[in-house]
């Protein structure tokens, strides 16, 4: 685990409820969730299907809004931001990895990685996007496949491209929703290694939603979401 120095993400009493229609009953998905993720920390959230893991990730990833509670990312209250500002947050501060890679089929590996840079990025970059993309792709073992299309890659390779795409804008927090869910065991292990290494090398905090305990165990903390509440999980090695 990387060294933590200050809070990056602070969730306070986050709740989320849904109603299909005005007349239909309310479904409480999240109940007063409290969570703090420090800079460079790695956290895994596990739980059964339907427990609200993805909802939580969507709220953190600014793809959804909480019904109640406060979410601070790097000290910014997400509830106070409009849609454009939230998009800016996603561009600069967050990286998202999904169970499916969601690569643009019409674009090459390199182009897919660079797509987020079209939306913007940090004002001061440590390195230029193209150089960074090349370095990272080389780092994940895809340096020789920059011009390949997603259809020409294996599932593990596609997911690695998705990982590089997620960190191209030098985010502070990388969110991964079942990143190994669609991979075989070997590929899943490789991706888990990669995520942990990138956390260390790029100084990016990592929050992983997963069913896979193998992956979860490699994170600094494991939390379980059950019955709408988040509790630390004792892991028996």
């Amino acid at each position, binding site marked *: 685990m990387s060294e933590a120095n200050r809070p990056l993400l602070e969730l306070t009493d986050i709740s989320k409820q849904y109603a299909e229609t005005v007349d239909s009953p309310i479904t409480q998905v999240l109940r007063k969730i409290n969570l703090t993720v420090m800079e460079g920390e790695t956290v895994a959230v596990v739980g059964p299907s339907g427990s609200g893991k993805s909802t939580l990730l969507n709220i953190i990833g600014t793809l959804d809004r909480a019904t109640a509670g406060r979410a601070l990312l790097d000290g910014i209250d997400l509830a106070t931001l409009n849609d454009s500002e939230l998009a800016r947050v996603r561009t600069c501060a967050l990286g*998202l990895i999904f169970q499916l890679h969601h690569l643009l089929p019409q*674009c090459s590996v390199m182009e897919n990685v660079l797509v987020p840079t079209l*939306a913007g990025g940090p004002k001061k970059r440590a390195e230029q996007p193209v150089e960074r993309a090349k370095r990272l792709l080389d780092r994940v073992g895809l340096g020789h496949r920059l011009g390949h299309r997603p259809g020409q890659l294996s599932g593990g390779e596609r997911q690695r491209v998705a990982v590089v795409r997620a960190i191209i804008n030098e985010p502070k927090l990388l969110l991964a929703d079942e990143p190994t869910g669609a991979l075989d065991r070997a590929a899943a292990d490789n991706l888990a290694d990669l995520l942990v290494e990138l956390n260390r090398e790029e100084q990016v905090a990592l929050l992983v939603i997963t069913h896979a305990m193998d992956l979860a165990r490699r994170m600094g903390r494991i939390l379980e979401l059950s019955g709408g509440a988040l509790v630390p999980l004792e892991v028996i090695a």
Partner: protein
Amino acid sequence: MNAVTMLQLAAKGLGFHRRHHLGVLIGATLATAILVGALAVGDSVRHSLREMAMARLGGVRVALNGQSQFFRMELARGLTQELKTNVAPVVNLRGTAASGGGDARVSGIQVMGVDDRFWVMAPHSRLPHSLYPAESVVLSQNLARALNAKIGDDVLLRVDKPSLLSRDAPLSTIEDSSVSLRLPVVDIVDDARFGRFSLAANQVPPFNAYIPMEFLQRKLGVEGRANLLLVGASPGKETTPVEATTAEATQALWKHWQLTDSGLELKPVPNKAEIELRTDRVFLDPPVGDAAVKAYPGAKGVLTYFVNELRLGARATPYSTVAATDMDPVPGGMADDEIVINQWLADDLVAKPGDRIRLTYWAVGPMRRLIAKMSDFRVKSIVPLAGTALDPALMPNIPGLADKKDCRDWEPGVPIDLDKIRDKDQAYWSAYRGAPKAFITLRAGQRIWDNRFGNLTAVRYAVSVAGAGSANPEQALPRVEACLRQSLSPASLGLFFAPVWEQGLNAGFQSMDFGMLFLGFSFFLIAAALILTALLFAFGVEQRAEEVGTLLAVGWTPRRVQCLLLIEGALVAFIAAVLGSLAAVFYTRAVVAGLTTVWKGAVASTSLQYHAELSTLAGGAAGGFLVALLSVWLVVRKQARLPARELLSGGQLAGIGGDAARKKAAGKGTGLPTAVAALGGALILVFTAMKADRDAGVEYFFGAGALFLIGGVALCRVILSRIERRVSGQALSLTSLGTRNTVRRSGRSLSAIGLLACGSFLIIAIGANRQDPTADAEKSSSGTGGFALYAESSLPVYQDLNSAEGLDAFGLNTEDLHGAVVVPMRLKEGDDASCLNLNRAQTPRLLGVNPSLLAERKAFSFGQVWPGVGANEASWTILNSPLKAGEIPAIGDQNTVTWSLGKSLGNTLDYADDRGVTRKLRIVGVLANSVLQGSLLISEDNFTKLFPRHSGYQTFLIDAPKGEAANVSKTLTKALEDVGLSTTPAPERLAAFNMVENTYLSIFAILGGLGLLLGSFGLGVIVLRNVLERRGELALLRAVGFRAKMLHWMVFSEHVMLLALGLLVGVVSAIVAVLPALRTPGVDTPYLSLTLTLLAVLVCGFIWTWAATSIAIRGPLLNALRNE
């Protein structure tokens, strides 16, 4: 590798999703091709008209058309030297032609006397034409064809013989008004050699016969004179603005014009110290007379008239001249009822001072009707037949009189009884010629003999005054002439140049814009193509929910995603614009081919050539690009509104009629109020229309139909919404499942219904207005005015064809015409301002009619009447309304006023009268669709004031008893063969006009029908998308045991319901809109073609729906199930 750009990303998307974009590309290409093609049709028409104008005018830039005025040929020579360009004098007259055997006859031809100066102005001259034999004729190709004449054949020409004095004028003769010429054809000329020469802006080629100038002049008795001057472009100045040429020509004309060019003569009076201005037209035009009198102090006007009789009691002196003047021998202060007679007359009548003498003379009424008039005068004094009382020069050059030595050879234009002429009369004539026997004051003479041709026959100038002391008239003559030239201008005497080249080009450029017309015709087709484009683009984007979700997830804003999609759509639109412009070339060629064959009625059988300006193609392509982009934008602006999480988890993007539209449609409940309001409004309008007058009713019904359409679509929305609510609570069945699916995408369903409803509405509403000219043709309120025949003559008819005397002149009696009544109209030649002329009429034809003749018959129907005339009801008498500032009230057919002249009710039109003065004609009434299309009508009184030199009638409306029209036509055509009378059944003439409109309607119906078919294809696309979206559901149904056939029928019936609803709403609305037309006898509703069009749409809708369902259900549905 460089950083990726939006454009690159869009290009990648374009390439990757090329199959999705192919349909979009086809739709947008189609829209662009039709749009550009429509505009290029306009180019083709304009280009063809320009080519025709150039063939018509060749090298002619400006022209002076003297019409009935014949000027010296030397004028042309003077202008040639002055302008340093070719100036061709031409004798230009109307006539008829017959083949040598007389079996083919053509009226209304142009007979022209020309020489080489004319031929070199032809588009492609081929010298020398001077080698043509002196007595020969050259025919235009169309005339040769019409006469079936070949080179070497003889043709018989009858030419209007010019008369210096209007044949309507008192004392003029109508005998010998034409000349017959039998001539061999020595050449037949095509358009390149002036076969099409004409000054009138009309795409219909005129029939031309060219005769060597000198021979024709000799035959007509106008040696050394011409009535038309054509000025060519100066060498090296071909590009000089026409205004400059006109100004230069006018300046040169001023310099070289002489009084004699306008038929004026200034000469010393024999044996007197006087100079006299006289005219070979007998009467000096009033403005000329006024100007001539005012030119010098002491100038005296003279009006000498030919009287039938001077009577005192039982004694009478026949056929004498009487002069009205205020100079000697009329003493100063003589009363207007007094007369001075010479000794010879006093002796003949045994008169003495104080006796009352009665003057009997002819006045000419309308249609040359002679009216015998009498005036009594008291003898003031008797003067000896000497000195000022013996002045033969006072008699004007009365045709048939002045040149006769023997009284018994007199042939004036009035009936005379030669038996009354005594030996002493002959002796007087031999000794003193036309020396007046009596004198009255000028005021008295002008009171009794004033006519529209003038009130003076001469102006006398006393040399002692005019010559400033010189008593020698010969010496004073130049100075008098110089002063007169300062007072008179050639233009005031009817000699002025017109910029015919500019007018010809303007007529083409300002013609009916076929580009816009076809754009209108193609509107629905373009709209359908664009809707299809939008549908296909929307469906393509819907397939890319994951991609959009990803972009949003990585931080793109919805606006940026929309921008990316828009760029992608713009790229498609751009390619479509390029391809569409290329396809437009073929489309335009096809339309032009259609306009010269099956649709030739729309362009009056004009031969058109394909032509497209680069600017039109570029502009059209840009237009196509923009409208396609607009369609894409309408789709794109609704995209990327769903959250990324939904899109990434397989949510649908908002497409046309997507969930957002469904929620809006079902949730807000605006459908019912809209339906109620629109249908209620429709009923109110129908109710109002029942009470309104006929014309207003039409608009109300159309408004009601449009509201019905809106209400119908809104009602469909309500129905779909209600069905959705109803079936959602029902037990699940195959039927309810199908119905739910229909209403699930209610916005999409409403799009299909609306498209089909609008299309069928337009096609029926417009197609039902076809005109049938034969219906109610006998009614005076119809477009025929109740007249059976419309007739035109090449040469003027001077007689009253309703009188026994008039008919007798043509060898007819009243029985021959079976009681037919003729309404004659004077004709001022001009541009045909009917829909049969594609050019914009610059100077329309004018008809002069006696309003009361039409008013008492209540002939024709007025569309509108200008409130300024203050008429309580629409009537022809508004032509007599006095208007301010000398404006002339005019009436025109609606189509003529609106389309051919580009005017509307109350507008004014500038028109040059005989003296070159610009007069304003104000359009005070417009007629509903009528046989009078093509001309403006003014009252005969105003006509003769504007065109005093004009004579006779050339246009006729003939009312024949039922069943006798053919006989009357045959009889009149035969009897008036020499004047080239041609008759047309009035319904037939109306049909020719209606054919243009009806062809337009046919084109609209065909293009609209194609649009509707495209709309039905759009329905197929909707079906395909709906079913593809439901493949999982259908697979499940298959998996649980439903047969494929059953599912096929379920899906098919759902969508056929949309098709049926769309057509039903459209057809019912259209029927409401066209109810008045369906009940109007004159309207020829094409039930068969309309029914076939709608059936074709229905069948195509079935086919698309069935095909789309088959494609969607075909193949292993298990994959769909797995995908779920």
